[in-house]
């Protein structure tokens, strides 16, 4: 009787141990896969990097579409806070000829370590480009004469009609600014 009981405990313990090993092995494998995915994903995230001459084309597309150009950076908390509203706008107004373009002002040395992981982890669906142009005094007034240089800042334009905002948006406020362009 005692022997039987003892065997049962041994059996139980071994099962438990086995299970544990399997679990931890599985975990290790899973983590490795995630790690690989992460690395592949970063490499796969294409990021167009422009100087201002390159970006200027995106600010002047006269094809009847409404473009919402948002200047932001991963280090800018109010920018990160309002990004979901721009994402939502891009999704909800896609059929209405509206396109959101997110222009990152992150420093080039953080493209791989911060910007791309941010795009991946937050699953940003809008087009993201990076502006790398150190001569800010030359290009800031070309975006808008009134821009002091703080972000977030947003340009909404359609052909030659254009508005500039140096402020944060709520979704409702953003939608309200889009509507006149759709008329």
């Amino acid at each position, binding site marked *: 009787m005692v022997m039987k009981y003892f065997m049962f405990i041994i059996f139980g313990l071994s099962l438990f141990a086995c299970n544990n090993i399997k679990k931890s092995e599985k975990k290790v494998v899973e983590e490795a896969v995630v790690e690989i995915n992460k690395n592949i994903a970063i490499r796969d995230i294409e990021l167009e990097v422009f100087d201002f001459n390159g970006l200027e084309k995106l600010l002047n597309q006269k094809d009847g579409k409404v473009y919402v150009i948002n200047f932001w950076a991963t280090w800018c908390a109010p920018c990160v806070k309002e990004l979901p509203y721009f994402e939502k706008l891009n999704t909800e107004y896609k059929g209405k000829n509206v396109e959101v373009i997110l222009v990152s002002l992150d420093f080039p040395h953080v493209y791989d370590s911060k910007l791309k992981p941010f795009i991946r982890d937050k699953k940003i669906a809008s087009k993201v480009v990076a502006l790398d142009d*150190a001569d800010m*005094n030359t290009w800031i007034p070309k975006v808008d004469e009134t821009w002091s240089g703080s972000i977030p800042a947003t340009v909404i334009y359609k052909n030659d009609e254009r508005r500039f905002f140096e402020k944060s948006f709520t979704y409702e406020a953003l939608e309200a600014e889009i509507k006149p362009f759709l008329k």
Partner: protein
Amino acid sequence: MKTIKLFPIAVLMILFSAFAVVGNGYKIGDTVTDFKLKNIDGKMVSLSDYKEAKGFIITFTCNTCPFAVAYEDRIIALDKKYAPKGYPVIAIMPNNPDIKTGDSYQAMQKRAASKGFSFPYLMDEKQEVFPQFGATKTPHMFVLQKTSKGNVVKYIGAIDDNYKDSSAVNTKYVENAVDALLNGKAVEQTETKAIGCGIKV
């Protein structure tokens, strides 16, 4: 007939004058109201404390903004070069530390010690000074010249034209402004623009 023709011009003029009022803060040529702000050593600092100064290089800066950090060494260099010539640097931290804990008074003390700031690093505790200046971001520079009518704004904007690489700078805006003032000349480029971190209120 003449009055009718003049009417649109009058409207335009009213509009323009209205626009001029819209922008807040000091403009080039304005006289600055003195302030009294707490330095990281606990002492209060005012412009009037600097009896010998010919002017000031005021920078609104902080610990947490990547652009401000990128310019720290250049701000230290400005003070080294121009404080002996009568234009000391005065740094003011405008952010609300409740929102940006990395800009707390203790964090400011630490940062100043580790970087060896040779100039005051003041906290705009009531957040009343930066709106007077019209500072909107960090870093945001103001060069003042001491005159008989007070401290007059002579330059507003960026430090230079390359935030990324101090060795690739073509134009040193602040240095050019201070050099001109030291030589009794007018500042050529009185205003420049740069990206910075919005001030946290």
